[in-house]
């Protein structure tokens, strides 16, 4: 619970609320009025709040904290009005089953309060005019550049003041906050990009912790994007972070990608990779993609109209590989390999933003951490690639509005009644449906055979796999394959 109080905080009474028998840990934080600031003697403080918003925001912070640190219960009260030295300005009590959770949750509450609770404090000094804390009268010329935080980066001639200013107004989307997304987001935040959007609908699991370096044991079970956002904000408060606890799918791809300066693909499966790629190419947004298998990784920068696209390489045999590499969730992976590749993704994204992308959009880089080698392979556009060579008049996907690559909603044209096919994944048990036939998602031969006989419409659980497979089959020249974007 959260409260504002214009009366002194009775710490003992609040503390008495922390008495749950299932809590093995309780942490109390008291923020107090100190008698000095910036070398000057402070006599007293005045706190002013925008009450209606402050209460709502405080309750949201408490709710988010309890979600982010499963098992925690948070009580918080913030003072308003005149406070003397030594008085409690904010009181936060957390109880949780374990100490990691209690400490982390307590820390999160105070950091979030300081970031967004509409409360202001005026310091009264001895022998000087009172001042509102944190509130400058005039703005520095360019805070992004003047800030010493970025000094070593600004000192690079390849970045400099102009590059730092570009970074400070840039927007980057990171899809997948896992082994790749964590280090990528960490270095992008450190670099001082303007706005970072994080997309992932997963939760932190114990098996993630060894390589997904934004998370600790305290966040186990929490939505990944919330845990990541909390860490990243603490690392560089100047970066605006938007955590979106959603899956990247055919239904939201265009909205998420539009307006970004660069997209980082940190997903772990081919279906999502094609979808992200196609959305980026459709909208002309540079994409930095990496993939890791065991000790090896590949890195690609895709820019529309430069170098080969993803379909140039995978058309024809993609779906088989797609299933073979469908997910590394249960697979073996060398943690430093995702770390290195994720950091390289951040580096390529920064270079794209400051205009130092070089030849990256024409190359695939291979990194092997087992034998310590790296290799650059030229990646030219393949003449006759069905995706690259398509025009707006003959889009790759039915329903594509402005691009040979992407369809927002793959609806069959009037007069076509495709056979509905439900893609079944290994081990998936679904109730039989009499208006659809079931085909294993990896059975490319069967799908080709059905497509040759007449128009088919692919469906799957979240629309990612169906649209990826439809793209691949259409890229092979099977023009009557459609995908359904939403849930079956």
């Amino acid at each position, binding site marked *: 619970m959260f409260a504002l109080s214009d009366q002194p905080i009775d710490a003992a009474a609040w503390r008495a609320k922390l008495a749950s028998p299932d809590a093995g840990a309780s942490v109390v934080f008291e923020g107090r009025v100190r008698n000095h600031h910036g070398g000057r003697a402070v006599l007293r403080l005045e706190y*002013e709040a925008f009450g209606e918003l402050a209460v709502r*925001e405080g309750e949201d912070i408490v709710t988010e904290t309890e979600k982010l640190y499963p098992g925690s219960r948070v009580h918080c009260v913030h003072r308003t009005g005149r406070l003397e030295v030594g008085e409690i300005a904010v009181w936060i009590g957390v109880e949780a089953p374990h100490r990691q959770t209690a400490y982390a949750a307590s820390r999160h509450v105070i950091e979030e309060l300081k*970031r967004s609770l509409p409360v*202001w*404090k005026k310091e009264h000094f001895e022998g000087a005019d009172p001042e509102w804390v944190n509130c*400058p009268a005039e703005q520095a010329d360019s805070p992004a550049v003047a800030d010493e935080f970025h000094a070593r980066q600004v000192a690079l001639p390849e970045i400099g003041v102009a590059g730092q200013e570009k970074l400070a107004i840039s927007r980057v989307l990171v899809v997948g906050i896992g082994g790749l997304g964590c280090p990528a987001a960490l270095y992008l935040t450190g670099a001082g990009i303007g706005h970072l959007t994080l997309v992932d609908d997963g939760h932190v699991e114990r098996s993630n912790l060894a390589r997904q370096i934004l998370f600790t044991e305290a966040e186990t079970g929490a939505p990944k994007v919330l845990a990541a956002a909390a860490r990243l904000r603490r690392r560089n408060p100047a970066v605006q972070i938007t955590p979106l606890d959603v899956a990247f799918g055919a239904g939201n791809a265009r909205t998420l990608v539009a307006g970004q300066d660069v997209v980082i693909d940190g997903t772990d499966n081919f279906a999502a990779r094609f979808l992200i790629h196609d959305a980026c190419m459709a909208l002309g947004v540079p994409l930095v993609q990496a993939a890791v298998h065991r000790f090896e990784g590949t890195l690609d920068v895709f820019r529309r109209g430069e170098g080969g696209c993803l379909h140039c390489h995978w058309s024809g045999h993609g779906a088989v590989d797609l299933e073979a590499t469908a997910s590394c969730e249960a697979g073996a992976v060398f943690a430093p390999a995702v770390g290195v590749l994720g950091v390289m993704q951040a580096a390529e994204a920064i270079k794209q933003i400051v205009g130092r992308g070089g030849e990256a959009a024409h190359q695939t880089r291979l990194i092997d951490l087992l034998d310590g080698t790296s290799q650059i392979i030229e990646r030219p556009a393949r003449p006759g690639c069905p995706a690259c060579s398509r025009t707006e008049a003959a889009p790759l996907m039915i329903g594509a509005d402005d691009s040979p690559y992407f369809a927002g909603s793959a609806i069959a044209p009037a007069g076509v009644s495709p056979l509905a096919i439900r893609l079944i994944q290994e081990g998936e048990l679904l109730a039989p449906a009499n208006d659809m036939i079931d085909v294993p998602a990896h059975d490319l031969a069967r799908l080709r055979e059905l497509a040759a006989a007449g128009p088919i419409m692919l469906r799957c659980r979240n629309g990612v796999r169906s649209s990826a497979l439809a793209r691949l089959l259409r890229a092979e020249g099977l023009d009557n394959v459609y995908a359904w974007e939403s849930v079956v």
Partner: protein
Amino acid sequence: MSTSPPSAHRLHLQFFARLREEAGCSALELETCAPTPAALYEELQRTRGLRVPRGVIRVAVNARYATMETPLRGGDTVVFIPPVAGG
């Protein structure tokens, strides 16, 4: 975004902390053509001498955080939020 000229609407404004002192009042009814908080803040900087830089201001519309580009409608309550300092 509409390109038609913005029409005047009546807004409720509240001011806190430094902005309250600069505005010289804690609340204000204002007839304005400003279509967004960004435009409204610029207007207030001109007309009421607000000095807190635009770059550090956030805004709440009807007691919820909003963006500086949120379209404003007649009757909205707009609060500009100078840098906060809780805790």
